[in-house]
């Protein structure tokens, strides 16, 4: 299949209106690892013939790291710019592969006049599975032990615990839970703008601690649903020199791989 990435401005110029905007986020756009997730999810959208668009170069950072670091000015500048862009195109529905983008657009853009239906890709995939639109071919993951790392901004922040698990359970694999999961899941260490700085002085790094917890169940795959968790846990696994035995994979990649997209 020839995959396409429809861009909002071009679609509008052709008089077309997408049903949903795929919000890529900065990690998904620029981080090499996260780009693979963006591509995997775009392939799924293509395969299911979903009428979507991306904003392309009109997308800007949501402002999340600035706001959480305490810099409200930069947040407001970026957020108001994004709200203007989205409102200008009359966007109604947004899907994000990043829980931070998801949280801030869903919960914090409304105060700035940006009201949209915002869902995370785990929820979107769950819906598509439930509606029977997305079918998963088993096989590739048969017998594999998969554990899921809860992202703070999906889980505690927004109460989304089941959607990513439903997606994993659609595969022909074993979902094994670690002790500290769901509400008690430990942060990967990247939130609150920690991604962009060193840990404060302490005994160890947070991602190391979290990776140890995840490794307790001897997984073949650690599934994630956030680009920052992905980076942090990947680094953690590398630190333990286990990168050949344990793969850190986003749920969108699991699906696209299972279906060999």
């Amino acid at each position, binding site marked *: 299949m020839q995959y396409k990435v429809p861009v909002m401005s071009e679609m509008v110029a052709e008089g077309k209106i997408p049903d949903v905007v795929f919000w890529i986020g900065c990690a998904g756009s620029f981080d090499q690892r996260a780009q693979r997730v963006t591509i995997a999810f775009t392939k799924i959208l293509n395969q299911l013939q979903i009428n979507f668009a991306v904003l392309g170069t009109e997308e800007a950072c949501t402002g999340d790291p600035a706001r959480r670091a305490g810099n*409200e000015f930069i947040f407001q500048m970026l957020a108001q710019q994004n709200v203007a862009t989205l409102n200008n195109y009359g966007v109604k529905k947004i899907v994000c592969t990043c829980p931070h983008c998801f949280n801030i657009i869903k919960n914090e853009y409304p105060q700035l006049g940006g009201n949209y239906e915002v869902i995370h890709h785990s929820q979107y995939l769950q819906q598509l599975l439930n509606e029977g639109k997305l079918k998963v071919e088993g096989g590739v993951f048969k017998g594999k032990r998969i554990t899921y790392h809860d992202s703070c901004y999906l889980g505690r922040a927004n109460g989304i615990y089941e959607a990513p698990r439903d997606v994993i359970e659609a595969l022909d694999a074993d979902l094994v839970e670690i002790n500290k999961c769901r509400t008690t899941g430990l942060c990967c260490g990247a939130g609150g703008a920690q991604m962009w700085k060193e840990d404060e002085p302490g005994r160890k790094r947070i991602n190391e601690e979290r990776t140890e917890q995840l490794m307790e169940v001897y997984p073949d795959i650690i599934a994630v649903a956030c680009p920052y968790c992905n980076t942090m846990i990947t680094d953690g696994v590398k630190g333990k020199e286990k990168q050949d035995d344990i793969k850190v994979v986003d749920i969108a990649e699991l699906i696209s791989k299972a279906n060999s997209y």
Partner: protein
Amino acid sequence: MNFLTVIQILLFIGLVGGSFFVAIRKFKEIYDNVNKGRPEHIPSTFFFRLKSMLLIAFGQKKMFKLTFPAFLHLVIYVSFVITQIELIEIFIDGFTGNHRILYHAFEGNALEKLYVFVINFIEILSLLTFFVTILFILRRTTFKVRRFQMPELKGWPWKDALLILAFELTLIIFIFMMNSGDSALEMKEHGKDYGFLLSGLFGNMLTGLPNGALFFIEKTGWWGHLCMVMTFLVYLPYSKHLHILLAFPNTYFTRPEPKGEIHNMPAIMHEVTSMIDPSYKVPATDGEIKFGAKDVYDLSWKSLLDAYSCTECGRCTAACPANITGKKLSPRKIMMDTRDRMEDLTRGRKLHGPDFTDNKSLLGDYITKEELRACTTCNACVEECPVSINPLTIILELRRNMIMEEADSPPEWNNMFSNMENNQAPWQFSPSDRLNWANEMN
């Protein structure tokens, strides 16, 4: 009424009146402190509030995340509430100079059974509480529970925790002295006692003592019980045990928003809008605009109520990723510092008048920037708190001040800020490259 009874009534009124006077003055001080916070509208319905309060405070829902301590705590909590029923009679007796007025009023009719049942219930719970309290003391002193071994508990908080447990033990001993001495006397004088299971049993063992001694035991128990309750009342507002009261309003005002949402700053929003669109009219605001919080009264009243409601249980800190990995940040300490700062300011105002300042502030002198920088905004602390406290809100308000007023941010964050400003991404990539990933689609 004989002379001794009059003296007793006067003593009783003096003790109870004095205690209430002192306690209420302190409670008022706390109320005023909370009201000094910034306004915050909590957008929840009455039904949501009631539900939160009943489930979380009354039903102790969150406590049951850790089953064993929750059970022990529940025993103490129920026993504390139920024991107060006996106080009703103590109060009536105290004011009127009577002795077991309710028992004698009910004697012979159906309510007598109920009375005996209630006292039995109190006594059995009290005995159970006695053992639970000893377990709690051991847990604090002997078993090394990590969340009770942290630096912020050194000194007063440590003593506070043990003191109250000692109170509890003394109170229970007094209850049993009172009821057992009384039962023994009743037995000797009327040939039958009240029918209390436990104190009847203890009383039976005491019948060999002279009546004077029994009377002394009973009265010591009665006055001791009363004195402990009054001491507790006066002591409460200085202690973490204030949570037994404040847990109710604090859970009533649980914030209904998703935990991931942080509060907007309308002043900055308007300013930025007017930068983008010069024709935009910024709504008038009253007073100076301060970015975030430098000191306690820059926080919202809910954050201040949070601080007074903290039980110092450390469940937040035990779940905090920064703390677990050895960083200085401890969300419990954030709450304790906020309360201590308010108390220090209150003391200062009492000594030096209402305009008291000491050139200190919550940010910097109580909570260091290193602590603030360590937070990942993961909400684990908020999730764990058994009384709906949100340490993260305070952390974020202080961070806002640190970054925007003091312009004190780690160099990596400064880089990130300038990238976001110039490239609309936290990394140094050109905005025109945003869609480059699409070239690798096929």
